[in-house]
């Protein structure tokens, strides 16, 4: 819809280029915004060993899409709500201790994904780009999405900064944080809501199946260069931005799906980051 307006505004010959520029610029901006938020948040997922948890929440996003289509809700709101519900369900089930977290995550992760896929397929009256949902679609990024990425992103980052101390203290030791008057449980729950928010806004760009990698790979890359948690968070944001930009250009050039392209770019940066460290280790090893 917005594309139409822009085509009219441009003089004839430049029409296609301008249109391309516009959706690609939007995709780039969205990718940068998502990566800047996913990096710092992803650090906590790495530190707390919550990778599988992140995956589960991300997979539940498809169920969120199906539910919001069924009830004609806003897609982002629906995805956020379902992801938050799934994480709450997980916390409650974990307290019962009937099954290990591992098994619970496995059950929730794949059943929400399957449920979402079945529901989406069953709703024959809605046309839906399943591939776009699963792997991300740069073409799908509207101006509203962009506003959502930046508006939501700023809120998430602000909340993360506010929660930083109790969250980090709770990551190092829940006991210490609790005894010294912080409330690690409250901040942990808030953190899960932030994750649900990031999944809701990142889904369009990287797709449901690959969101977790955008959280984890930049953080893992930053680990090798950071001396403090704060450094790691900032570096993870920049690594993520680099991956988003590189991946989206790759996606444009080779006509590959945007999500996997960004993840491949992140992987390449991760692999490159390992090389100098290995050299350094070798040099260190040569010394007596």
């Amino acid at each position: 819809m917005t594309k139409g307006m822009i085509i009219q505004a441009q003089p004839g010959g430049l029409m296609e280029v301008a249109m391309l520029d516009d959706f690609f610029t939007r995709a780039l901006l969205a990718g940068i915004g998502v990566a800047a938020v996913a990096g710092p948040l992803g650090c906590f997922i790495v530190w707390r060993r919550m990778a599988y948890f992140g995956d589960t929440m991300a997979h539940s996003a498809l169920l969120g899409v199906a539910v919001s289509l069924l009830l004609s809700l806003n897609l982002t709101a629906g995805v956020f709500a379902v992801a938050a519900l799934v994480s709450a369900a997980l916390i409650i089930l974990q307290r019962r201790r009937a099954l290990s977290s591992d098994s619970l995550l496995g059950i929730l992760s794949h059943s929400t994904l399957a449920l979402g896929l079945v529901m989406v397929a069953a709703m024959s009256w809605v046309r839906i780009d399943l591939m776009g949902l699963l792997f991300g679609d740069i073409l799908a990024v509207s101006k509203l999405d962009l506003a959502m990425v930046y508006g939501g992103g700023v809120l998430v980052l602000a909340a993360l900064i506010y929660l930083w101390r109790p969250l980090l203290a709770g990551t190092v030791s829940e006991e210490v944080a609790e005894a010294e008057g912080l409330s690690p449980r409250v901040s942990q729950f808030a953190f899960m809501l932030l994750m649900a928010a990031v999944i809701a806004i990142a889904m369009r760009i990287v797709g449901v199946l690959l969101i977790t990698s955008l959280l984890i790979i930049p953080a893992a890359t930053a680990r090798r260069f950071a001396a403090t948690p704060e450094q790691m968070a900032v570096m993870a944001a920049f690594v993520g931005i680099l991956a988003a930009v590189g991946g989206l250009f790759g996606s444009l050039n080779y006509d590959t799906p945007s999500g996997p392209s960004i993840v491949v770019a992140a992987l390449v940066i991760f692999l490159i980051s390992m090389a100098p460290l290995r050299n350094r280790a070798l040099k260190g090893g040569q010394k007596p």
Partner: protein
Amino acid sequence: MLDASRTAAPLVSLSGAGVFRNGRWLVRGVDMTIRPGEIVTLIGPNGSGKSTTARMATGILKPDEGSVSQRAALRIGYVPQRLAIDRSLPLSVSRLMRLTGPTPHEKIHTSLAAAGVAHLENAQVHDLSGGEFQRVLLARAIAQEPDLLVLDEPVQGVDFNGEVAMYELIGIIRDRVGCGVLLISHDLHVVMAATDTVICLNGHVCCSGSPENVAASEEYRSLFGARAAEAVAFYRHQHDHTHLPDGRVKHADGSITEHCHPEDGHHDHGHDQGHDHSGAAGRANGGGHA
């Protein structure tokens, strides 16, 4: 120290406090008071309710019976049993010191120095040995200028000499900072010597009082059996000298002689403690440089 602390208002007091979980009492009927400058030790077998009692004192657990009252705006410094910090988390010692609250740089430095680990300020926590890490954790807790220092088995994974040094250090810090100390321990020997009041738990308070009284009590002996007698012996000889494996005697000032001196305090505790602390400060620093 003790006389002054008897008159001061208590930091924490529990009266008849108990916690009920999953159909049973984890601990009940606990009476405990910790005043500024006082070292209170909870001892007892595993599952006797030591940690539960400590968690009531810190306010993490609400008692299901009895009451717990904390002095208003009580600052607690907590030294956990152990910390498993994931290697993916880059954490320098100086950053760990600021974990739960903003801490000025001088405070970080003096606290690390007080624990004898000033040289580790820029090290990564993953590179520390067990003993170094325990000292850093202690430094972290005191850097928060706590009114009450709570230590949950602070000598796990520390060798025997480290254990002695650790308890001496806790005594020194108590003297310097003037905070109350709540120690949790299941090992009897060293901790008995370094404490003002011992509370012996086994689901309830078996006995409590000065370490001498507790060590001599019937309940204590029946709870710990042969180990109890050992602890009594150790307690009597601990304060200012250590018997080395070869039979010689190491004194608090570091000198080594063939036998105990007649003036070595086996019984006169008031005198011994002063003696002990000055010597321990030297030893703690020495250990830090090693």
